[in-house]
């Protein structure tokens, strides 16, 4: 039987602020099936990004287990978690976070390079994917020459190029105007579904809800599941 794409069991995360322990997530459990697109809602500071970081293995939970495609990330050391992330996870950020020192093509090629797959075939795939995201002629440009929407399309290409099983997106449209945001979202939705990728997206914007298979929200550190046609975000 195929394991779920993401499986969280009684995950808690707290941060120490001086003498005070501040709990961000409390006993969160979640299962995301392979190929599902899940949207995670919540107001600023609710712990959405923290949850995403735990799934990516960027951060470790205070308690509980995090499994991605059957691999228990909490049992891995830093090095192994990084290697796992490099191979199986793609990331899209709110502020694009392209490497300013690399060209557009090099930015997309980077995950392949890290996985030792930046050969001629890899380069060809990068160019094809850049064509798909509408930036075929911009491979040699540096990121600071691109508009916000263009940068985010490069970031989506970078998140998908190494065919990760799981794509994590942290407010992918948070820094774009409504029209550009819709285009970017559409692109992510299309590309992910075509390749059967699992996507976990964190947002507090309504537009994103349209692409979701499931919608979850975080309230006071706990995860609450809501039907897709329910109110957008009771917390707002």
């Amino acid at each position, binding site marked *: 039987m195929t394991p779920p794409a993401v499986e969280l069991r009684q995950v808690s995360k707290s941060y120490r602020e001086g003498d005070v322990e501040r709990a961000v997530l409390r006993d969160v459990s979640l299962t995301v099936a392979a190929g599902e697109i899940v949207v995670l809602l919540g107001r600023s500071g609710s712990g959405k990004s923290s949850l995403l970081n735990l799934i990516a293995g*960027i951060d470790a939970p205070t308690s509980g287990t995090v499994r991605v495609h059957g691999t228990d990330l909490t049992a891995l050391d830093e090095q192994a978690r990084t290697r796992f*992330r490099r191979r199986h996870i793609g*990331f899209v950020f709110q502020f694009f976070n392209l490497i*300013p*020192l*690399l060209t557009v093509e090099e930015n997309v*090629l980077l995950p392949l390079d*890290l996985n030792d797959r*930046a050969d001629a075939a890899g380069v060809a795939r990068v160019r094809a994917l850049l064509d798909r995201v509408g930036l075929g002629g911009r491979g040699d440009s540096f990121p600071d020459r691109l508009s916000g929407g263009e940068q985010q399309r490069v970031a989506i290409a970078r998140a998908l190029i190494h065919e990760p099983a799981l794509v994590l997106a942290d407010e992918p449209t948070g820094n774009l105007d409504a029209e550009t945001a819709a285009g970017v979202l559409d692109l992510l939705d299309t590309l992910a579904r075509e390749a059967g990728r699992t996507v976990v997206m964190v947002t507090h914007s309504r537009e994103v809800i349209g692409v979701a298979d499931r919608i979850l929200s975080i309230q006071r550190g706990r995860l609450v599941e809501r039907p897709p046609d329910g109110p957008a975000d009771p917390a707002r």
Partner: protein
Amino acid sequence: MRRRLARIAVRQLRRHPWSLGLAVLGIALGVAVAVSIDLANSSARRAFGLATEAVTGRATHQVIGGPSGVPDEVYRRLRVDLGVRPAAPVVAGDVGAPDHPGRSFHVLGIDPFVDAAFRPYLGGEDAGQTRARDLLSRAADLVARPGAALMARSTARDLALAPGDELAIDVAGRRRTLTIVGLLEPADPASARALDGLLVTDVATAQATFGAAGRLTRIDLIVDDDARLARIAAALPAGVELVAAGARAGTTAAMIRAFQWNLTALSLLALVVGMFLIYQTMTFSVVQRRPLIGALRALGVTRAEVFALVMSEALVIGVVGTLAGVVLGVVMAQGLLRLVTRTINDLYFVLSVREVALDAVILAKGGVLGLGATVLAALAPALEATSAPPRVVMSRAALETRARQATRRATWLGLGLFLAGAAVLAAPAGGIVGGFAGLFLVMVGCAAVTPGAALVLLGPLHAVAGAAFGMLGRLATRSIVAALSRTAVAMAALMIAVSAAIGVGVMIASFRDAVTRWLEGTLRADVYVAAPSLVGNRPDATLDPGLAARLAATPGVARASTSRSVVVPGPDGPVHVVALDVDPARPPRWRFLEGDDDGIWGGAGDLVIVSEPFAHRHGTRAGGTVRLRTDRGERDFRVGGVFYDYGSSAGTVVMSRRAYDRAWDDRAISSLALDGAPGVDVDALVAALRARAAGGPDVVVRSNRALREASLEIFDRTFAITGVLRTLTMAVAFVGMLAALMALQLERAREIGVLRVLGLTPRQVWGLVTAQTGIMGLLAGLLAVPGGLLLAGVLVLVINRRSFGWTMPIDPSPSVLLQGVALAVLAAVLAGLYPAWRMATAPPAEGLRDE
């Protein structure tokens, strides 16, 4: 400044403690090096001045003679026949203290009844009656008891001696004993320092001590009437002359000053590197806060207030760093003083300094230097901050574009500074100061050209790094260019420090090579015998003639030749003359700058050769003449040639013993050179000679090899202090590199965070940062090679020639250059270790947190 703004400054400094700490450390080290060298130099100079003053006293003129001094009949004639008063006879010389290793004394033999006018600390014209009575009885003691001596109470306390105790002294290898009959009580600390190391005796005791019966070292006079001076000069016999007091000391002082100038210049280099550090810290602080400054301007804060904000932060760093530097400088001065004094003793003058004289002026100068450097370095960033328009936040990319434009301007400026430096160096009247000013311009020019040159070099390096390490390699080189405003300053500072290391290294290597060759040409006998000497490189003592003859007759000795080394008066001050008893069939193999030694060793005619420093100092050429005061009156000697010589920066005149004997009555010898018969083992011969000399006065018997090693040891000792200064300058550059990398680490947190999320392992991050720092070090090192060679060229061809009068071929040994490049890479990589570790281990979420 407004309170809120002041709070911003305080919090900025508090929030970046490492940046603050490194900047303080950098300026402190720079100031400490400058202050410590200044203190050590001035302490040594002051000790020299006091020592000279202590023996010269208030004399305006001195009557001096040739190598064997002034006959005491001259004193009688001056005082009795000509009625010259005040006049005081002096017999002086340096002695060792065998029971107190490391200490030496200047014996000053005087007539206590006439000396008070010259050296009041010995008598004191203002002293009260009781004291005067004491002094009179003490004077009687000195005269009445042979071997009686006075010493300063503080010296006696140091050596645990009391009146009545005996003090063993070593006079050119002979052991003698003086009895301490009284203690001198200096009125103030300055006099105490002057008297430290002085043994005052009666003239007769001094004559007995130095075996100079009937001879005086000099006669001190106080005369301010030119007509009278002319009468005195006319009455003096041949070989004795009247000179202004201090002329002799002046020549030595000038040579010591040249040596100290070199140290001062090197110490200022550390401060210049420290300035880079301040500039870097303040630039970082301004760049990082551009948004904040923009917001403040929008809120109504004026340009002047922003300027004051940045400058006040710099001043806090400057004040703390300077204070720490001055304190550290005083501590370091103690160690450096030992090195400076040792070199002065090795090369110039017997000097005993044990204490750093804390001079308020020097400490204040250190303070001004530190604060001045801080203000100067912070000026550009502070002006940059005021140019931030309200609410407009300049992007990092725009800033770097501006940095690249500034690089072009800096390159042109650097080329201009090169030309200006070359012009200053070429000016013949520049002297040592001009030499260093030119050198400074050239070095600043090098620093200004560094960013542009680094960009050029980065082109091929980028391709190599890309081919070797793929995208990460390219990322490493690009990140240097992208953060040019940061990396360029660190590279320039490192380049300067490594250039100094290479330049001074090449200079020392060339010098050592020249000295080694010179020793090979000069030292050709198998064994050398000399009386022990207090000044390392000057055989001022004489060898007993009977002993010399006995040693020359030792079985196994095939040939013996003697040399006499003396200081004789010349029209421009004292001249070091060496008379060699050389077999004309086996002349020494010296290298000549011009002319040769043809016809000299036969001893016919007044023919001499002069050393390069002598020729440089006196403008003498082959074919010209040298005028010397001989025992037969002034005489011109024809100069056959100018030879390379590194033995004395004062210069030497060399002649045959026969020519010397014709001109002077001195028949003493200073050293003996012996050749072993074929097949004789040199070590066995040395042992046999030592056995023969045993029981008599101490003599130093050394094999050719041992003497050569001893000479090179003095050479290496001379440059020990240079090594210390080089290390300190490197330390400041290292701190600069560390500060730059720490600043970059803070700025690149997000980029590194993203790379970590994309799957870069901590080790790869570490590798990336280390590669970047390594490349920066490599660039600085590669650029330091031409910089260092340029520096070496100026040091050898201009500074050394102007300071010491000698030239030598430059030997840019590849090992020194490679060491320099390796040093740069090592310093950069070491400086990068901690920032790289911080970047590698920082949780990636931290770097992305502020989203």
